[in-house]
């Protein structure tokens, strides 16, 4: 029995911009872009772990990716766009959230806010810096240019040599360790959170499944990603023949 009067109250037409500006719309964008980025991080890790199979598979994998040509650029474009939307949306939400409490508590305490959740903006910003560094390191080759020019016997870019030799530098390795720890922290809140933001949790799903999903993904990524620099640095990966 909706009254006629209430139906006449007009509402601005809904559109994508309006949706994205709404608090739940913005959060769902964070969740979806986060999901894509998490999937990338996971795939990236699995691909890179081929390094433990020796130089041949990883170099072949690298060559395969390079050979994708325009498709590779498309993937790169999508990832970049996703990242930009994720960051832009986050930045906007951070500003709004700061503004929502103009006067802070003199004594602030909390019952259950986690370190990971509270530091999302900080871990996010440091991760952005790391992504730039990582691209400069292994994609553009500007960090250790002397290693970027190696080629294997088939003439392919020698990724194996580049990686293993690259992580002989303790500073580079330490930076990767720190960044991946932060990535794990970021994922541990982000992955659990995206289910809630997309509205697919229920109390029975939330604990333990969803609440543990974040830490589980974070830990898996941490172990997988750090295995490569640490194994390189500790000399567990055989140095490429002829190198050094």
């Amino acid at each position, binding site marked *: 029995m909706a*009254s006629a*009067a*209430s139906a006449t*109250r007009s509402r601005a037409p809904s559109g994508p911009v309006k949706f994205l500006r709404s608090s739940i719309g913005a959060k769902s964008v964070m969740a979806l872009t986060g999901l894509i980025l998490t999937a990338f991080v996971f795939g990236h890790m699995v691909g890179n772990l081929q390094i433990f199979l020796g130089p041949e598979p990883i170099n072949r994998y690298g060559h395969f990716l390079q050979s994708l040509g325009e498709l590779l650029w498309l993937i790169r474009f999508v990832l970049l766009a996703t990242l930009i939307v994720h960051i832009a949306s986050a930045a906007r939400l951070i500003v709004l959230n700061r503004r929502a409490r103009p006067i802070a508590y003199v004594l602030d305490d909390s019952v259950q806010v986690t370190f990971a959740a509270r530091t999302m903006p900080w871990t996010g910003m440091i991760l952005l810096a790391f992504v730039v560094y990582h691209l400069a390191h292994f994609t553009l080759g500007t960090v250790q240019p002397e290693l970027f020019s190696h080629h294997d016997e088939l003439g392919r870019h020698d990724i194996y040599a580049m990686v293993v030799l690259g992580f002989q530098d303790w500073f580079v390795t330490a930076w990767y360790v720190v960044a991946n720890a932060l990535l794990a922290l970021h994922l541990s809140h982000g992955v659990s959170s995206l289910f809630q933001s997309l509205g697919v949790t229920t109390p029975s799903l939330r604990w333990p499944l969803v609440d543990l999903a974040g830490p589980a993904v974070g830990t898996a990524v941490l172990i997988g990603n750090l295995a490569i620099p640490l194994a390189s640095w500790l000399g567990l990966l055989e140095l490429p023949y002829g190198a050094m």
Partner: protein
Amino acid sequence: MILDAKIPEGPMAQKWDNHRFRMKLVNPANKRKYKVIVVGTGLAGASASASLAELGYRVENFCFQDSARRAHSIAAQGGINAAKNYPNDGDSIYRLFYDTVKGGDFRAREANVYRLAQLSNEIIDQCVAQGVPFAREYGGLLDNRSFGGAQVSRTFYARGQTGQQLLLGAYSALMRQVGLGNVTLRPRTEMLDLVVVGGRARGIVVRDLICGDVYCASADAVVLATGGYGNVFYLSTNAMGSNVTAAHRAFKRGAGFANPCFTQIHPTCIPVSGDHQSKLTLMSESLRNDGRVWVPKDGDDHRAAPEIPEEDRDYYLERRYPSFGNLVPRDVASRAAKQVCDEGRGVGSSGLAVYLDFADSIERLGRDAINQRYGNLFHMYEKITDENPYELPMRIFPAVHYTMGGLWVDYNLMSTIPGLHVLGEANFSDHGANRLGASALMQGLADGYFIIPYTIGHYFASGSFEPVETDQKEFEDTKKSAADRLQRLLDVRGGRSVDSFHKELGQIMWEHCGMSRNEGGLRKALELIPALREEFWRNVRVPGGNGELNQSLEKAGRVADFLEFGEVMCLDAIGRKESCGGHFREEHQTEEGEALRDDEGCSHASVWEYKGDDDFPVMHKEPLSFDLVKPSVRSYK
């Protein structure tokens, strides 16, 4: 003062129908032209505002709380009665009517009570449609329980939060109308006085509690739904802000005040723990379904409760009332508790408490079953007292809970001032001398949803309304007197806080006009109250100023009115020379100490008319006749 109850003609069951047909209607297109002021946003106020706005009237709604959702109706725990007879256990409109008239100790108006019982069913339908999440059975239909000793299960409930859920239902209907622009809501705004123009209620004077502005609002009719006056006792189960000001001010402007001495003392509250106590917490009456009430046989028995053997315990309700036992009505249970405490057999550090013991039920039904039924209440008890009721019996004591008295209204809910309508606990109409459990919510909503929308239209259609302006003399004068009074309160600059006066008044009222009363005590109160009032106006200290948020000033105005109103209560208690319901006069009791009603001399509502500050008010009688339910002795033995 003419007290014409305007009871419609015809057989009882047809009175409301006949009346609805005979009442004049306002043309739908003309409803916009009428404006109604509603004071209060509890069950009665919110439901009235919403319903009137839905019909097309312009409504301005005031409340002193920060939001309309906070009115004290929200605290009702137990449930709401209706004669649906869903459990098929023999309930009917007539039975609900009969129980209510009898429960009220034959001091309510039959026609009003019958209408209440008729409307009870529509209330449940309305609330369900609004999304009130009543308890349900596995089959998806509504669950009912028996409450307050009723012999049928007619109480609908939403966990222990029925009042909250019903209020939120009415509040949401109200909010919808506010959103549509049909109701102007003014929270944190307190009514200070009523404006009467040409003999009719045409507006109110209010104070904006945030900035201190005193201003007038005008309308074609005023509806008061401002609750009860239980806080005259200082300690009660009412909210801290509940007050008599609106009703008392209306009384001083010419509205008759009916049965002010009818106050209900609820038997199961958490006892006072010290002088610092600011309010009393009710524990739902349902606890008496499984708890046994007792005190030690010997007042000097100071052993811990579990160490007192059966033979040294006095289960006094079971002993005195073998057939109803622990489920006797509220007034009877309360008085019995007071009696054993007066005999020096009360328990706890103050000696003002009795045990409510669940040990037998826990043994019989298991701890889980008790937890299922009363878990939240046990939790609340433990939070407040730091004692675990699974191991130690609860300590309980009666506390002021509800006031059956209120502004006199006719069948149309209109007071003796034309245009001033009074709903819910603020009026006197339906509960007589004692209210049954789960009936207050029913009455508030019946008044607001289903009675006032019709009767106010009849009032509008029956006369012509000159436009009034808030700058005309009557408004300006009333506003000035209200503002002057606030200034006088600030100007006293004495030495005692408002609360200390309120506490002292409460002690006087509790001592002499509380659970049992006698002429000597009441006369003493009539000496003490004016003396206290005189000191108040000479020695109260109200810090701060008028043009700001000033809680001391708010309280001072309310306490000043309680200091006047307490006297009217005592006068009424002296005048009613019988014991009935919540009013127990020690001079009028049987040899066994039971209440003794006087149907010959006292079958009336006593209605008080204000005669100026220097004179006593004058009492008028509205005789009560009982055509369907013949008055009998209420026996629970």
